[in-house]
């Protein structure tokens, strides 16, 4: 009878746990890492893309798709970038929901949706799947990097149970514990975007699995990267999701490109 409290999401175990929700979180802790950093003048997101193999045809996504660079980082609204860790199919459906919610707010109120409100909209839905029978919870955690006039730059994290919380720097997915303790050491409250980019990439390179790092061809493009800042001219939030070529340039600038990175990894 081991499965007595596993098979339905709506049933508590005698210890007061919802196993399906915990399994969903477990699934996420095996997914590619996504980390977010809140800076004084922007927010930074970095994500690790698990490379499936060199036979996978990536020619169509080479330049990054509209509003996203592939599988982990998406533009949810003109003022919010989302970083997703977990089941890709579930993530796509959540991205679609988030974009619809953001546009609905824009239509009704003629303003970009406040970041926390968007996080709340998604969490309301995620919570529903932990309560109503016969449904599986979303196997996705999200980072929301956004800007709104109420609280300026913000970073939120949500999990399959429908909880969300605000962070200065955080991480979801594989090795998130390592990444978070690294961030805790290195993060400074008055960090600027240009330094946050470096910190994000350095933390990323230290937490990524060495097997992924070793895979020659795909290694560099295995990182996804995005920054949200304010446009100096218009004063409006400007989301930039980096293309693979731009990420290579960035890694080189930060001294994390192929060779340096390997020596650093050995030294570490």
């Amino acid at each position, binding site marked *: 009878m081991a499965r007595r409290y596993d098979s339905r999401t709506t049933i508590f175990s005698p210890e007061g746990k919802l196993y399906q929700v915990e399994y969903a979180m477990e699934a996420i802790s095996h997914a590619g890492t996504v980390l977010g950093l809140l800076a004084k003048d922007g927010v930074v997101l970095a994500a690790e893309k698990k490379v499936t193999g060199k036979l996978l045809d990536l020619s169509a996504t080479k330049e990054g798709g509209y509003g996203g660079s592939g599988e982990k980082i998406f533009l949810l609204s003109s003022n919010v970038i989302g970083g997703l860790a977990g089941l890709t199919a579930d993530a796509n459906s959540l991205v679609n929901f988030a974009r619809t919610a953001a546009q609905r707010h824009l239509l009704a*109120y*003629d*303003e970009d949706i*406040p970041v926390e*409100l968007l996080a*709340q909209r998604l969490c309301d839905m995620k919570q529903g799947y932990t309560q109503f029978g016969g449904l599986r919870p979303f196997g996705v955690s999200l980072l929301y990097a956004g800007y709104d*006039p*109420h609280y300026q730059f913000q970073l939120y994290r949500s999990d399959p149970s429908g909880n969300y919380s605000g962070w200065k720097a955080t991480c979801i997915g594989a090795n998130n514990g390592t990444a978070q303790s690294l961030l805790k050491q290195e993060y400074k409250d008055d960090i600027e975007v240009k330094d946050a980019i470096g910190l994000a990439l350095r933390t990323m390179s230290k937490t990524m699995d060495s097997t992924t790092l070793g895979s020659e061809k795909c290694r560099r493009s295995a990182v996804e990267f995005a920054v949200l800042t304010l446009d100096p001219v218009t004063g409006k939030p400007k989301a930039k999701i980096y293309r693979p070529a731009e990420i290579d340039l960035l890694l080189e600038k930060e001294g994390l490109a192929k060779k340096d990175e390997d020596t650093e990894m050995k030294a570490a």
Partner: protein
Amino acid sequence: METSFAITGKGYVIVAADTTASRSIIKMKTDEDKVKTLSPHLLMAYSGEPGDTVHFAEYVERNIRLYQIRNLYPLRPSAAAAWIRRALATSLRSRSPYSVNLLVGGYDTASHDPHLYWIDFLGTMTEVPFAAHGYGAYFALSLLDRYHDPEASLEDGLIALKRCIRQVEERLVVTPGKYKVKVVSKDGIQEIDL
């Protein structure tokens, strides 16, 4: 004849409306408050078809309150005005449209500046430094064009408002007697006795 004014200044919006309730050629009442407080930093002056006006204003008031209870932050003036405009535009294409004209003034606590929106029963909306509805508009707009100063203190703003009221009293055939004047600023809403 119904008249309402609104003037922005340095960190505030003055919203004023006459206090007469009339039916045909009869004055039914002279102490009607036609400036509704929608939220701690939002005012709305309404005029138009009697009945429609109060009904629509209460509908708006309660929806704005609902948003505030449900969500984390109250609607900003720009967002509230956009919502109100949409409500009017939707109503215009229904079987019984509201014929209500509005001036929505508020202080944005997120960006720390005052905003004023002129909205008519057709669902037209525009953000303006000063505005007026009704017959008084014919006198007030040219006056304010000359005397409005976006950097004016509250005292100077009230002087500009008094100029408008005086001209209406002097020139309009059927003038409303009294006005309700309210001001919204960062400290919230206060009523002013002219």
